[in-house]
């Protein structure tokens, strides 16, 4: 009854992150509530350390540990780096907002670190059980973050709504997992891939379970028809938290979705492809059409993120290695666009108050030209105008879909993209051609202008230089998933 100790080496970055988060928690407690800046800075350094460990120590070789519960490969490394960048940048952008609103509590960076840990576990899950615990670790931290501004009704409402709907989605996920376990006798991805075959042996029960699983995933990535919580939560949560929500957890949940589909149900492509095509089309259309009537820029970004999840899912719907590669390129580009846009939203501050209406941007080109140019680049990039990075993202996913024989899907995507141009470009029009609505306050910190500047440069035509390394990295990551 003795067993050898499992190998910790593949999971070392996660272990370091967990221990680091707990050490920072202790630091915060002993400094008794004055440690926000210190803990926040150290968390960013912790993320950098974990990223270095991922690249230098773990590397892209596929290795499985903890009795097959945990897997690391180049796909995991790529997605985890994205998640770490998303979390770290969102944390760097938070300081001023948190201090201004009196919610600069040291628990905030600690919760972000623990949520990031949950995301890394999700990405590395090689078993439906480790997938579920990683997801719960992430979600529970996110529910608290949504409600962290507890004296504000909108924030507590957002937290409660997110919690109730998140619990519902976890229930659907677990129901799906139990059906899958009942019909195949296993929850390990490797065994599932072995047991689940197309044709006469694919029991209808497994497929029903898989559809429930996909419904649970769709909740987490806020794909239509499970997107209802997104606008309310994005609007109600504090803006830096919304920026975090729109970046890292989306990447992690999409990566988890892709790994579950290819790792466990690779043989059932034809079955899950239909479902993914449906949610992809629905997300693109809803994201494009309903965003037109929004006046609050955070709600607009929520619908925009729903639409972008739809575009990313086009890559998954293709069901090929090229499709996964395209999806990874797309989410990398989407994440930098979103972080840049939210950095811009965080600098919309007038007379010490945050403003969130699109009308507040009026005439920004006359009062603050650099910010206006930055926002214009993000909006054109989100719309997918050629020469900017967002265009490449759309190009690769649609191309992957066409190559996989899904031309109608690519055409629907293009149409949705044209519709969405309307509201992105309307913001540019408001900024450049309307009467000025007044000055924004100057940014005190360096973090937000830095994020705006860096991501604007990354999305400007400079992206021509960066797109081929990015595609090479994504190809390296996608290769490990399909074997």
């Amino acid at each position, binding site marked *: 009854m003795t067993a050898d100790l499992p190998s910790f080496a593949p999971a070392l970055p996660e272990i370091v992150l967990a221990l680091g988060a707990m050490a920072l928690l202790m630091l915060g407690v002993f400094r008794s*509530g004055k440690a926000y800046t210190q803990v926040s800075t150290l968390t960013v350094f912790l993320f950098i350390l974990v990223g270095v460990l991922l690249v230098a120590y773990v590397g892209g070789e596929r290795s499985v540990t903890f*009795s097959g519960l945990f897997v690391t490969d180049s796909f995991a490394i790529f997605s985890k780096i994205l998640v770490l960048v998303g979390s770290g940048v969102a944390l760097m952008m938070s300081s001023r907002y948190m201090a201004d609103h009196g919610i600069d509590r040291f628990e905030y960076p600690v919760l972000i670190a*623990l949520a990031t840990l949950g995301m890394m576990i999700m990405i590395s899950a090689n078993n439906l059980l*480790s997938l579920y615990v990683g997801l719960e670790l992430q979600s529970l931290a996110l529910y*608290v973050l949504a409600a962290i501004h507890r004296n504000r009704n909108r924030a507590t409402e957002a937290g409660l709504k997110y919690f109730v709907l998140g619990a519902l989605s976890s229930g659907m996920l677990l129901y799906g997992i139990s059906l899958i376990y009942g*019909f*195949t006798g296993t929850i390990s991805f490797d065994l599932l891939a072995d047991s*689940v075959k197309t044709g006469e*042996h694919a029991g*209808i029960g497994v497929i029903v379970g898989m559809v429930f699983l996909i419904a649970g995933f769709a909740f987490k990535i806020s794909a239509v028809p499970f997107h209802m919580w997104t606008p309310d939560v994005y609007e109600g949560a504090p803006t830096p938290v919304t920026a975090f929500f729109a970046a890292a957890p989306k990447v992690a949940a999409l990566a988890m979705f892709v790994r579950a589909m290819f790792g466990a149900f690779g043989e059932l492509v034809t079955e899950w492809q239909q479902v993914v095509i449906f949610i992809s089309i629905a997300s693109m259309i809803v994201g494009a059409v309903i965003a037109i009537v929004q006046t609050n820029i955070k709600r607009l970004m929520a619908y925009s993120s729903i639409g972008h999840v739809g575009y990313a899912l086009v890559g998954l719907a293709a069901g090929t290695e090229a499709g996964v590669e395209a999806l990874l390129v797309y989410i990398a580009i989407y994440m930098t666009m979103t972080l840049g846009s939210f950095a811009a939203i965080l600098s919309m501050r007038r007379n010490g108050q945050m403003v969130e209406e699109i009308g507040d941007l009026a005439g920004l080109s006359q009062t603050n030209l650099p910010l206006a140019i930055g926002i214009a680049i993000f909006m054109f990039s989100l719309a997918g105008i050629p020469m900017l990075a967002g265009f490449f993202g759309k190009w690769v996913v649609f191309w992957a879909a066409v190559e996989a024989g899904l031309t109608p899907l690519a055409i629907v995507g293009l149409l949705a993209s044209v519709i969405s141009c309307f509201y992105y470009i309307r913001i540019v029009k408001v900024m450049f051609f309307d009467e000025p609505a007044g000055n924004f306050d100057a940014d005190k910190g360096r973090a937000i202008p830095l994020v705006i500047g860096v991501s604007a440069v990354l999305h400007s035509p400079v992206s021509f230089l960066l797109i081929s390394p990015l595609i090479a990295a994504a190809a390296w990551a996608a290769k490990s998933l399909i074997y």
Partner: protein
Amino acid sequence: MTLTAGAFYLFAFVAVAAGFLVISARNPVHSVLWLILTFFSAAGLFVLMGAEFLAMLLVIVYVGAVAVLFLFVVMMLDINFAQFRKGALQYIPIGGLVGLILLAELVTLVMAWQFGDKVADNVTAPIPAAEQVENVKAMGAILYTDYLFIFQTAGLILLVAMIGAIVLTHRQRAGVKRQNISKQVARKPKDAYEMVEVKSGEGIGSASKKG
């Protein structure tokens, strides 16, 4: 064999009946008491399956701790349960409809019941049979070796829950008097009182003015 079967049906019937009474009892305290009976019956079912350790855990943890906690919560929170239930009854028709549809779907599913080829191999024995190894040993092996990773992650989830509860509810109130033991111990007699010599017949008026 018949005794085991009889015991099974007894425990199962009591568990279902008590479970129904949990949601139908008018008095919430009675609901909690019925819940305790449900837990006991479930523990009996575990014993029948040869899982004595789980049965004991269920009695100690659920009856001993969770149910008592429920009882406290029910008695201390000021919730109008009658009002609560009145609203719930309105949703019975639509809820019943959804339930019927789900039932129909489940029946269709059961009709098409089909296992893959490898299911039998997958299911076989993650743990040894009950005769070969004791309960506690089997559970320990599962929890601390095979599923060590899950066990630790579950611990982190509980940590997040604890941080979350503190972040969302803990308040620093102003003007609260707290005991400061070191300050109390360090206090000397002369900080607390003053010896005043009062001359007879003069009262203490002049003395207190001096102090």
